[in-house]
């Protein structure tokens, strides 16, 4: 039975099994390739998206639970042709290398900043516990978040 999804403020319709993981639906059925799949066990954080404001490992989130919810993916962060301040900051601080973990990290940190607009460094590091990055060593990512919180994204 077709299901209606609201993703980044747009309506989509899909007709796939209701236990299909949201990450796969985004990538395979809707062409939203920004969300990456890493471990497929909910451990690496690369597939994190927001569902009604909650951080969700979309590889473990069945499509059926997403129906009727407001889903946000990395594609929805910036404006038309513009990056969000958090994206700008991570770029300018050198917090991106291979990029596989970046969309999930952006979604986790977006949720963090919405809940806690001025997080302490420890809070940022705790929020990132579920996002594995093998390139950057996290320092530059943490620095970028603190810069955004201080109103100095670039």
């Amino acid at each position, binding site marked *: 039975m077709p299901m209606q999804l609201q993703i980044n403020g747009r309506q989509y319709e899909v007709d796939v*099994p209701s236990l299909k993981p949201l990450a796969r639906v985004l990538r395979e059925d809707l062409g939203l390739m920004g969300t990456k799949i890493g471990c497929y*066990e*909910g451990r690496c954080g690369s597939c994190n998206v927001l569902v009604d404001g909650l951080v*969700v490992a979309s590889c473990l989130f069945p499509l059926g639970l997403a129906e009727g919810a407001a889903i946000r993916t990395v594609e929805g962060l910036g404006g038309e042709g513009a990056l969000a301040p958090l994206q700008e900051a991570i770029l300018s601080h050198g917090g991106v290398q291979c990029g596989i973990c970046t969309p999930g990290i952006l979604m986790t940190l977006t949720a963090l900043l919405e809940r806690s607009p001025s997080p302490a460094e420890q809070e940022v590091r705790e929020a990132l516990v*579920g996002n594995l990055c093998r390139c950057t060593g996290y320092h530059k990512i943490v620095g970028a978040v603190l810069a955004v919180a201080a109103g100095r994204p670039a």
Partner: protein
Amino acid sequence: MGVGPPDATQRPEMTAHAGPPDLYRASSVEDAVEELARLGPDGEALAGATWVMRAPIRHERFRRRYVSLGGIEELTRIDPGDPTVVGALATHTAIAALETGNGPLGSLIEAARTSAFLAIRDTATLAGNICTVFPEADLVPPLLASEAQVDVASPAGRESLELGEYLVSRGARPAGEVVVSVTVPAPAGRRSAYERLTVRGSGEFPLACVAVSVDLDDGMVREARVAVGSVEEIPRRSAAAEAALQGRLLDVRAAEQGGLAAAGELTAREGLDAPGWYRLAVLPALLARAAARLV
């Protein structure tokens, strides 16, 4: 074709039935009970789905139908007070937001705050933690030490039972039963703390964890309740540890002796993450750390 291991929609042999499993969104507790009773072994309740969706990794088969409890308002409610009633679908994040400090709910809140990581805490639920059989469930020891009751609904009606009794009967619960809430005694003056040990700082299952709940008279332990998780297959209270603390000044020395007593009483499971002897050897230190937060 995507990356990663096959999910239910791609591997028919992972299901016991023709076609992929489907999902039914229950409109009320009664609706869920009725549907689960009708399905029997072909159905299972679904909360945050973080455990069910990993069935292929555990080489388990999916059920034919999952009954989603999401959206049933009664199940997400948290009513603070004495007792505090926590809805079955309260997430770890919602529980962690309850309060701070080492009051009667302190151990439960600390367990919710420190378990796993954000994406799991935002999704995983109280009921998922107690209905799923896994030794490392963080919320269970604090609930055991709080002498919490599990409130269930079934075709026979609603009832409450001791959490310890519920845990050991999980393999034989009646078809159609749904955990509705957990009722946690929270009398003023009671203090509690939770400690977990992981190899890295966080983001892992605990190798061992302890919850301590005490009633104190001028620093002396009038009553102690100690629960240990991740050591045996099912978390449980340690009567020996409680006896070691009872009637004494709550200090690090007494707590270490409580930990030694617990280690002598428990039979530790072996695992790739830690050998059994190690889980027992760390109990005195964990109890001492918990006690240090209470004095």
